[in-house]
């Protein structure tokens, strides 16, 4: 678990550096004298660093592979939106699982990402591709799917979980049919029950002001926070029995199994209590 890459802040704010934490350990992020990004643990260790998707990434261990790829990050014509941070008093895994969920749209993001009576979740496909969780052919009726959407449309989604605390979603792009908007959630585990969530987007939208794009995403995520801070238990239960999934929860079921198979337990609860 310590060998994964985790987001630790926005590269755009590196100038003055900052202090934060990773899995309970205080760390410091700053430029070194040669203007290279340096992440240091409290005991003075220099930690691995990479800068990608607008964020600084680090690890308390030794990552065995590069940070996962998001090919759309290099696609011309996209606007990249660094939404900033939302601190949530919940397990990092609960934050990711909520991001993978569509059935809550009509109730939590009412009149934005969903609205009654359009609550039905149609069957979709879930599979493991190259050791990532993928959900495809996910369709849902949305009153205002994106800032650039004028009215209600049926949006198609694809979800992927390329790392235990990160998820990338692809959704119908209203101004450009045939392309996908990309919205990612990078979750920094501060502790097992506390995280900083860094949403990031790569959109085809040349019209909407950056502030509005950020506000839209922050509104959505603050609505999610009101849920995430009130789930019991705070840790994500990986064993069946404590919570009841339905067909609409297949992505969540696959995510929990995938975590368990990888023995990823940080922020998880293994035995029903």
């Amino acid at each position, binding site marked *: 678990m310590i060998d994964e890459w985790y987001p630790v802040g926005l590269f755009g704010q590196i100038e003055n550096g900052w202090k934060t934490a990773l899995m309970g350990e205080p760390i410091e992020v700053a430029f070194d004298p040669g203007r290279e990004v340096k992440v240091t643990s409290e005991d003075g260790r220099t930690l691995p660093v990479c800068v990608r998707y607008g964020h600084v990434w680090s690890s308390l261990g030794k990552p065995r592979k590069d940070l996962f790829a998001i090919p759309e990050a290099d696609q011309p014509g996209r606007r990249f939106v660094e939404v900033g941070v939302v601190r949530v008093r919940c397990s990092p895994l609960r934050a990711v699982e909520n991001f993978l969920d569509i*059935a809550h749209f009509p*109730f939590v993001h009412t009149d934005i990402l969903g609205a009654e009576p359009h*609550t039905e979740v149609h069957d979709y496909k879930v599979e493991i591709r190259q050791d990532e969780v993928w959900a495809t052919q996910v369709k849902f009726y949305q009153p205002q799917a994106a800032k650039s959407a004028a009215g209600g449309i049926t949006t198609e989604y694809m979800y992927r979980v390329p790392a235990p605390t990160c998820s990338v979603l692809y959704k119908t792009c209203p101004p450009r049919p045939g392309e996908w908007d990309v919205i990612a959630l990078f979750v920094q585990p501060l502790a097992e029950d506390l995280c900083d969530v860094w949403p990031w987007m790569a959109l085809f939208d040349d019209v909407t002001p950056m502030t509005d794009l950020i506000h839209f995403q922050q509104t959505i995520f603050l609505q999610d926070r009101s849920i995430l801070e009130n789930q019991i238990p705070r840790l994500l239960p990986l064993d069946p029995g404590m*919570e*009841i999934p*339905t*067909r*609409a929860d297949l992505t969540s079921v696959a995510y929990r199994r995938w975590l368990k198979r990888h023995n990823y337990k940080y922020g998880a609860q293994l035995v029903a209590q």
Partner: protein
Amino acid sequence: MPARTPAGPIALWRSQSGHAAASADRCPHRGMRLSHGFVRGEALSCIYHGWSYARPGNCLRIPAHPGLTPPETIRVATHEVEESGGVIWVAVGEPTIQPPRLEGLAPLRSLTAHAGIAVLEAVVGAKAGPEGLVWQAQNSQEIRLLLVPQEDDHTLIHVLLDEKSSASQRVAASRAIESLRRTAEYLQAKGIAS
């Protein structure tokens, strides 16, 4: 609304037809607090995915699957609820007796004190019984207190007064109870500090 009993947190709600109900404060789907939910008709719905529950605790509807009749196994634990004289009583387990009838008393207000029951009893100078704590406060008529222990040494206090009390008597009792809270909180803090 959320409430707390010695058996744990509960979601307390009133159906459209006026029946009070109490269930465990956790939706079995994803663990969301049901006290954040909403009441429609005779059902309490979870705010996360809209799963709705009847007063006996069985799941009525899963909006993600409108055509599905939820199996009987999906349910929330419930508690027996009785209303009498303006007070809602929630049972822990299966009670063999009815809640006390507090004849001639009317509810005045509820408040939370950061003090334990023992401290409140010490300030009042009496012990709480099944019918609450009887307090003869200065500058007020007799006040009845129903004490419910909460988390972290907090106590929820329901205040009742003679139902024939005048407006000025109710104001006097309300001030007396504020003063009781301040004294008890002071003693509680001092007790912890010493």
